[in-house]
């Protein structure tokens, strides 16, 4: 800790000095009597000043939690010195963590003892946050010298994005030969009825459709659609974002990606993630809860990296886009590179859906009348872009802050049902 004089100490010493000079100048000892206590006070304080043996440690209730969730953090201030000290403790100031109380907390720590101060911490946004060190200031018993420093190690915490529970998901066009929750187009053992056909050697008796058999006069068996899983790739566009003071499209995009990953993994799909932006990161598709944690961890490190580099489908490793995978592009459709990628993927025959994270809520028109016209032109141009993607057979679900994604995905499924002949082409 760094020691310095209290802001009042020079004043006290100056008053004492001025009193002495006045006493000498006027020849009145009474003035010296007034001045001496100040000098004695200041001098004794300086003589007795000693660096306090204070340490502090920061502890969080949990290191992993959801964004917006409130938890308690404890600051333990320990005094190993022989005298008690007065300490002022202030929490860290970070843009993403709301800490209460935000102001300085004053405590008295007894000799060779410890005091705990509780702070409530609430992350405003998902991501990796650091709590600590804390700013601590102590003063000696007379308040002549102060000692200030940052104590305690930084505690790294991870705030996971809040996820929306999705009941409706985009149904993939193609499935993989693993047990899952999607009704496959092929015919095999399953629950969903597909068709009836004449009995063949090897068919089981339980497959016989007796009503059809009675009508047609020969043995008929039921055919069913099996339930299979699918491969899902979440393509997160991190080229550009629209942002206001509080939040931006990337915040919403990560929440949407986490919600989709959880919902698809719960339906036993293989899910992978591609962070497509100035820097390229990916996670190959895999099953299970462990993959969910891997995906969320990968999403937490997503940020907008400015880059002039042109990226296209060839920038992506082949293994991250398995054949027949459903690609969910989560994008604000702001960067030409991501729009070109979406078009190119569709033209290559990929099963693609765009989840558009609408930037309109984060951007307001500029101050002039021509800016307002430009804003309206931009809004209409975005509608036209959406229509162009739909004409390619790409379903577009619009994700807006404060509204559920489920109905938008339902609309996409309806669009995909009507556009199926074009999608197959």
């Amino acid at each position, binding site marked *: 800790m760094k020691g310095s004089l*209290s*802001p*009042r100490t020079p*004043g*006290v010493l100056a*008053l004492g000095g001025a*009193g002495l000079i006045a006493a000498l100048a006027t020849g*009145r000892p*009474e*003035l010296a009597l*007034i001045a001496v206590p*100040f000098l004695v006070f200041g001098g004794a304080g300086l003589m007795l000043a000693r660096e306090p043996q204070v340490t502090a440690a920061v502890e969080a209730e949990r290191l992993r939690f959801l964004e917006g969730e409130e938890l308690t953090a404890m600051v333990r201030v320990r005094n190993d010195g022989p005298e008690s000290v007065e300490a*002022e403790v*202030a929490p*860290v*100031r*970070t*843009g993403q963590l709301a800490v209460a109380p935000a102001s*300085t907390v004053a405590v008295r720590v007894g000799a060779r003892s410890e005091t705990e101060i509780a702070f409530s911490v609430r992350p405003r946004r998902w991501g990796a946050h650091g709590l600590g060190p804390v*700013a601590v*200031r102590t003063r000696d018993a007379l308040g002549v010298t*102060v000692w*200030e420093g940052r104590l305690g190690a930084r505690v790294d915490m991870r705030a996971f994005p809040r996820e929306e529970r999705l009941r409706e998901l985009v149904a993939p066009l193609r499935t993989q030969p693993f047990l899952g929750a999607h009704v496959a187009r092929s015919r095999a053992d399953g629950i969903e009825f597909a068709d009836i056909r004449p009995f063949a050697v090897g068919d089981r008796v339980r497959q016989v459709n007796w009503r059809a058999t009675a009508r047609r006069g020969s043995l008929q068996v039921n055919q069913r659609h099996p339930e299979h899983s699918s491969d899902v790739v979440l393509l997160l566009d991190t080229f*550009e*974002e*629209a*942002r*206001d*003071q*509080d939040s*931006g499209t990337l915040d919403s995009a990560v929440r949407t990606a986490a919600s989709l990953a959880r919902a698809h993994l719960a339906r036993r799909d293989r899910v992978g993630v591609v962070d497509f932006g100035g820097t390229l990161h990916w996670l190959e598709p895999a099953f299970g809860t462990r993959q969910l944690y891997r995906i969320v961890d990968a999403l937490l490190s997503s940020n*907008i990296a400015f880059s002039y580099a042109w990226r296209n489908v060839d920038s992506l490793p082949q293994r991250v886009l398995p054949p027949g995978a459903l690609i969910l592009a989560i994008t*604000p459709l*702001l*960067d030409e590179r991501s729009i070109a990628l979406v078009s190119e993927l569709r033209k290559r025959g990929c099963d693609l859906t765009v989840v558009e994270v609408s*930037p309109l809520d984060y*951007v307001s028109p*500029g101050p002039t*009348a*021509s*800016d*307002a*016209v*430009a*804003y*309206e*032109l*931009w809004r*209409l*141009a975005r*509608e*036209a872009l959406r*229509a*162009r993607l739909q*004409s390619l057979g790409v379903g577009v679900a619009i994700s807006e802050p404060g509204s559920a994604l489920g109905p938008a995905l339902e609309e996409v499924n309806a669009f995909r049902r009507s556009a199926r002949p074009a999608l197959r082409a």
Partner: protein
Amino acid sequence: MTLLAEIALVVLAGIAVATCVTLLPAPRPLRRRQPAAPVPSRPQQLVALERLVTTAGTSAVSAHAYLRPRLIEIVSHRLAARGQTLERMPEAVGRDLLGDRLWDIVRPDRRFPQDRRGPGVQAQELDAMLEVIRRL
């Protein structure tokens, strides 16, 4: 009298000292790092359009080369929803549907402006055109 004056002097000196003590600076707040304020980010698409609307108001070339393709894309999308196309639209129908000014801009046979320094499309005019498009 002298004693009284001395007592008064000491009292006054005491009051002056007490006043000075109260005027001494208070301890400053604990030094902490200010968090970086989040920077709002405006999309480049919008910034480019704001520039385009400004330049299109003063330059016929800018209006023809940069604003017109955007208007054509928007109008085509709106017309497609009605089962119409701009390319096959008769002039009379186009003028009736889009209005004279918008039709003159988006008509398929529009030529490059002869007067390169001629006036472009003012923001108010463009606003009126967008209103027509919205009503389609």
